[in-house]
């Protein structure tokens, strides 16, 4: 293999694939990045057997070939080089990659490319075309609600459902649920449903920043992998095998009180309360009072900790329905308010022991449900 490329391109490519490098594995080759020539370009790939990221960068190929080299060594070295042309040449016999850039030279010992796992290809699976802007927002609004502990593997994933021109992403960790709908520009003929690991979707969100053309998504026939195809990047992830709980039954159908507040005011109030709430299991108490003789409606947030003290914060609210007192986890409130992207937020409640529903006002494509905490009276 003999190939030249620019330092900036290689460094960027490595930063894209490096997230999929396995930090510890019984297969040493998983700590390596695959470097291969591919139709006049340079292909970089890494996988931890769960997530595989492949990226193509422009290069001048003089001689085809492939090898794998330790990801850390390669990216640390490349990142310390000046932004100039890098010439790479592989000694096939010793599997040593020689790099030359400006006045720097390096030899990196690699492992034969045949040892590298075969990254699954999707074949002729049905492709779904997604607008990058929409997909990024869906990922942002849903993945944070997925569970991080492994006791129930399906909950570490995001259930993705496609039917005709509708797409739904949902994730839940047992305490909160995030559901986001969107419309497909090109309808699909057969419904598809798959549980994608939240980490894989976050990775798609991370690398799709510059993407302008639609992102193609495809699920293999046997429903074991999902592919996200960007212009020069492909992400393949193993799907999670299992049955996702029926989340539609968790969303309350009715509510006793609907409270509309300004999102940034609520964000500030939550932030202030969480100072005290963090020592009390993040509990903030929310009191909602409808407008009446006492004046306009308001929402009062209180938090108290035995050690640091307590606080009270009031914000104006348009309240429709019964007065209510309910406690939530401050972090969960902050998480959802961060991804709402709407000036006004509606909180629907029906008593202190029923889940609260959070929606953006004038938008019905996003629903977030948070289980209440014990008021502890």
């Amino acid at each position, binding site marked *: 293999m003999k190939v030249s490329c620019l330092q900036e391109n290689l460094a960027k490519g490595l930063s894209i694939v490096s997230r999929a490098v396995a*930090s*510890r*594995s*019984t*297969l040493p*080759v998983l700590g390596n990045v695959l470097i291969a020539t591919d139709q006049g370009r340079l292909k970089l790939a890494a*996988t931890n*057997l*769960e997530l595989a990221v492949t990226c193509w960068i422009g290069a001048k190929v003089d001689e085809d070939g492939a090898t794998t080299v330790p990801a850390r060594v390669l990216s640390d070295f490349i990142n310390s080089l000046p932004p100039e042309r890098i010439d790479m040449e592989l000694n096939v016999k010793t599997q040593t990659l020689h790099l030359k850039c400006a006045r720097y030279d390096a030899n990196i010992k690699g492992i034969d490319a045949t*040892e590298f*796992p*075969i990254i*699954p290809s999707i074949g002729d699976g049905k492709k779904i075309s997604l607008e990058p802007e929409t997909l990024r927002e869906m990922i942002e609004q849903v993945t944070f609600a997925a569970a991080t502990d*492994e006791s129930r*593997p*399906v909950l570490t994933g995001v259930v993705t459902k496609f039917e005709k021109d509708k797409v739904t992403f949902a994730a839940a960790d047992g305490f909160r649920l995030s559901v986001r709908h969107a419309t497909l520009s090109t309808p699909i003929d057969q419904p598809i449903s798959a549980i994608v*690991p939240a980490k894989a979707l976050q990775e798609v969100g991370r690398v799709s920043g510059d993407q302008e053309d639609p992102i193609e998504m495809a699920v293999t026939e*046997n*429903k*074991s*992998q999902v592919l996200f195809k960007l212009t020069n990047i492909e992400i393949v992830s*193993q*799907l*999670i*095998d*299992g049955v996702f709980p029926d989340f539609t039954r968790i969303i309350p159908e009715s509510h006793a009180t609907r409270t509309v507040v300004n999102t940034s005011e609520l964000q500030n109030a939550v932030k202030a309360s969480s100072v005290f709430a963090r020592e009390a299991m993040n509990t903030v108490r929310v009191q909602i009072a409808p407008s009446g003789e006492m004046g306009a409606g308001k929402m009062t947030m209180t938090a108290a900790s035995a050690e640091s003290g307590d606080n009270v914060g009031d914000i104006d609210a348009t309240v429709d329905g019964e007065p209510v007192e309910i406690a939530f986890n401050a972090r969960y409130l902050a998480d959802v308010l961060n991804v709402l992207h709407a000036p006004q937020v509606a909180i629907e409640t029906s008593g202190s022991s029923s889940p609260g529903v959070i929606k953006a006002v004038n938008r019905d494509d996003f629903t977030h449900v948070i289980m209440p905490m014990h008021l502890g009276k």
Partner: protein
Amino acid sequence: MATRADDISNWQIVGHDWAVHALARGLAADRVAHAYLFTGTHGIGKTTLARALAQALECTGANRPCGECAACQKIARNRHPDVQIIDGVPVGYKFDDKTLPPPRLNESERRILKIDQIRAVQHDVSRAPFEGRWRIILLRRFEEANEEAANAFLKTLEEPPSHTRLILTARDASLLLPTIASRCQVMALRPLSLAQVEAALIERWRVEPATARLLAHLSGGRLGWAVRASSDSTRLDARRAYLDALNAALIEGRAERLARAGDLAKETDALPELLEQWIGWWRDVLLVQNGESARVANVDREENLREHAARFRLDEAQGALKALRATSRYLTQNVNTRLAMEVLLLNLPGS
């Protein structure tokens, strides 16, 4: 009529024909159990059989396992992304994100299979296989799993995801929680005949016939043990040293024996193996005394055995065996190693 499952030569397994036949039939009928438990003493071929089963499941060739396709080759080298071998970790080992647990030093090293490892398995099996047909998890020496780990594993063992096959190995099913064993299809592997081991050593591992005969007899039908010993001369050297030590001790007086016991007790790690060899020796002495010389294991020292058989009485040989068994039991408990060895050496006949 001969079906494909009748020919099992492609499995490349020496002995255990009944087990291989059963597995091959299950494979041909597409009825592979979701979890197997292979039992038998160390070095009998449990992991070898498990690996062959994994190859048969993942093989992309015509005559599964073909041993030649990329999948079979990768499994043989422990490099298949969907086939994982889980072994216990050293006592007191702390898991971290950067390093892997060290490999097992020797067969008698005590290890623990921990709940963190079971959790990692649970994570892995929730994902579909990467390049193969199945995700196969081979959990070796499951008797080393602590109770927490075993209990955490029950749910996975009962209902593993559809693409998962679990293979457990253990010395004996009775060492596991009954709830573990009952969730697996148990295959109890038996020791091979000495002739099988000897022939396999000569034909497949190209061992010198004389060495092969000795190793086969010493192995007690554990081909894996014999193969490892054939490539690692330190085992035979150690055995020679242990038997020489026994020979020397038997003609020594009390004071010398006490000194010897002190020396032996320093090598704590080697003691189980030493006691094993000495037990084997006295068994052979008893056999010779009873006119069963053909069945002795220490075939390279028949002269020495005959001499001991003549020198000691039957009850002395039995007494020595009893003392050795007791000592090896004490050593697994919390006794002072030096005292145990002193008592043992003083109890040996001859002084």
